[in-house]
């Protein structure tokens, strides 16, 4: 530590700062570890378990990328970031990619000089109400009191939604999520609004989850996805196509259980063969081994498996697929072809 620190300081004075290496993939391979930025803790998306291993939906994306590049889903150094430190960590090169339920917006993509590799979860703002209220649609909430966190986009979205539908409401401004939940359970407001995934996680912590319902209306777009720095397209492609491979694998029926089988010899489907590297040279094109996609899928399973394991209906969070279903099933997940 001391010597490297010393040389680091020396080098800092000699070199210009921010000379981020152009080839992130080479850095990762040389290091033998992927530095992946995640949240310090978000239910279902990233959190260390009782034995200290990181788990969650965002964490699974990191592991898949590590498996694709290095062949080992555990070769990841998880760097916890807060909402305030995440972007500087990425742009300073401390982390190679950020998978931290970050909404893809115009300004983050262009002004902050990042590149979103795709969307791994389509979120949006929703409402939670007690079942006893007898409300089935957000449009029935005329005259309701709504708990909302202040200073967020949710507050603005809420105002827009009610104005658009020409109904009235009374906002109950709240500072934090925990406080909002307390107010909601105490009956200080009829409805609580925040991102739908957050609502589901909150609902799971309530004493009687079945007495509360999340209304079907989603009133804003929050596409969450992994992102990398601008200017390293090879690396961006690797992250993008790893995510696509997970999504395509679900579409084609490749799972963690059968991927080893399918990747051992060419099968009937040319698309699966190309993706798993038994046919063609897609691995070479992206600068990785031929079995990169097979490794990524074997790391934790395809998109559907990851969803079911971390945030799906059988978990306490109990999110339904909704927008996050495959395009063939009415959702938005659509991977470009592997060709």
């Amino acid at each position, binding site marked *: *530590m*001391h*010597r*490297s*620190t010393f*040389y*680091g*300081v020396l*080098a*800092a004075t000699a*070199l210009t*700062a*921010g*000379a*981020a*290496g152009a080839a992130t993939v080479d*850095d990762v391979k040389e290091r033998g570890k992927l530095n992946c930025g995640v*949240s*310090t*803790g*978000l*239910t*279902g998306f*990233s*959190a*260390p*378990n*009782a034995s*200290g291993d990181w788990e969650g939906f965002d964490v699974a994306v990191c592991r898949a990328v590590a498996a694709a590049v290095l062949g080992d889903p555990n070769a990841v150094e998880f*760097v*916890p*970031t*807060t909402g*305030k*430190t995440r972007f*500087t*960590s990425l742009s*300073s*090169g*401390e982390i190679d990619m950020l998978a931290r339920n970050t909404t893809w917006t115009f300004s983050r993509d262009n002004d902050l000089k990042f590149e979103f590799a795709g969307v791994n979860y389509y979120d949006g703002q929703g409402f939670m109400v007690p079942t006893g209220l007898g409300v089935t649609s957000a449009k029935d909430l005329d005259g309701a009191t709504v708990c909302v966190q202040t200073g967020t986009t949710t507050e603005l979205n809420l105002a827009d939604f009610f104005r658009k539908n020409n109904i009235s409401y009374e906002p109950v401004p709240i500072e934090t999520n*925990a406080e909002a*939940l307390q107010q909601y359970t105490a009956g200080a407001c009829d409805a609580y609004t925040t991102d739908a995934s957050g609502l589901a*996680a*909150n609902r*799971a*912590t*309530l*004493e009687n989850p079945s007495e509360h319902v999340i209304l079907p209306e989603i009133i804003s777009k929050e596409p969450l996805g992994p992102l990398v720095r601008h200017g390293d397209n090879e690396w961006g492609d690797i992250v993008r196509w790893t995510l696509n491979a997970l999504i395509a694998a679900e579409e084609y029926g490749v799972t963690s259980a059968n991927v080893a089988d399918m990747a051992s010899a060419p099968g009937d489907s040319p698309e699966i063969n190309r993706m798993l590297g038994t046919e063609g040279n897609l691995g070479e094109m992206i600068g990785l081994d031929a079995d990169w996609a097979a490794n990524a899928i074997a790391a934790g399973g395809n998109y559907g498996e990851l969803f079911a394991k971390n945030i799906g209906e059988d*978990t*306490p*969070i109990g999110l339904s697929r909704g927008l996050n279903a495959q395009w063939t099933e009415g959702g938005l997940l659509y991977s470009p072809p592997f060709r």
Partner: protein
Amino acid sequence: MSDTHAQSVAYVRDTFIAEQAPPTREAGAVKWLRENLFSSIPYTILTLLALFVIWQLLSGFLPWLFGGVWTADSIRGCREVLDGARGGCFAVLTERWNQLLFGFSYPSSQYWRPTLALVLLFVAVAPVLFPDLPRKLLIVTLLYPFTAYWLIWGGTILVPLVALLGVVVGYVAFTYAERRGFAIGLLAAVAAAAVVWWMGGLAAENGQFLLRLTPVQSRDMGGFMLNMILGTVCVSLSLPFGILLALGRQSKLPIIKILCVAFIEFVRGVPLITLLFVANVVLAYFLPPGTNFDLILRVIIMITMFASAYIAEVIRGGLAALPRGQYEAADSLGLDYAQAMRLIILPQALKISIPGIVNVAVGLFKDTTLVSIISMFDVVGMIRGPILASTDWNGVYWELYGFAALLFFVTCYGISQYSQWLERKLATDNR
């Protein structure tokens, strides 16, 4: 004489009455109650009101505390066991106590190391805190930082050993060169220590496996251990720096004075959280990519800077409170500046400053929880992040924060009790 009035008085007592117990309402608990709690109608009302409030609090708190669930695998398990009854879900502490104390990535087979370091800490600070202990024990104190570093971070023992050797050689060089003047002595010490460290660095690289403990990265430190490391290191470093800054601010040499004033005023004018963000975020921009300047080290530097400035002002208060006669007395004895400070001024000034210093130390110790904002997992960071984010324990607030509060209260109350004992012991003035 005695029977002079025998005719006019019906009865004259000629023996003493045996001592009687005072009336019930004038003795014992009843008297105390009457005088202190029910002496008048307003007092009685207030007493009853207070009793009611206490009853309300305890009737809520005690069943929660004693009816709590200690074994369950999740908050849902707790609720099943409780079945609507009132009680805390302390199972989260049973399952995650190690994460709260050591963070989630410190290897669990090595927990004995920080624990031992904590026990040794008490041994090491004892000779500093209690002047009655034999002075030779101070050697233990001097060895402690190196032992603790080796225990907590692991790796070969050569690294702390070389560091220690450098300090010793530097000290020896200083004592030899001091007679040529203080500055030359200091220069010789630094040069000698640097040579030893450089040579030792080479040796340590070759002897990687000598007495090797499993190395633990700084980023794997967490939990209350991290608060203790930051608190202990920063308080003990900021005290000497604070003294130097306070003396520098009173110095007659303009450059030193200006530097000290500027440093103190700048650091005191900036919130601690800003300095922490600088340590975490801004430094990453200035360092070339790939270099990982240890985050704990960065944070220690920033917190020490912050605390030094405050302690400097506290000590300056102590210096200012000393009567001018003390300075003049020192001068008239022919003592030079260093002697006067060491023997006369500082012992008195520091004694006056004890409450202020302890105040800063306690505040600083609690401020170490701010590092949770720059994504370090101290005890509050562990609670806010990983534990409350796990699907098992999301929703357990009081039990976790109560536990953290208990840890901090025990530590801070201990510090405060010690300082009061020290003040009583050092009270030589006549009040």
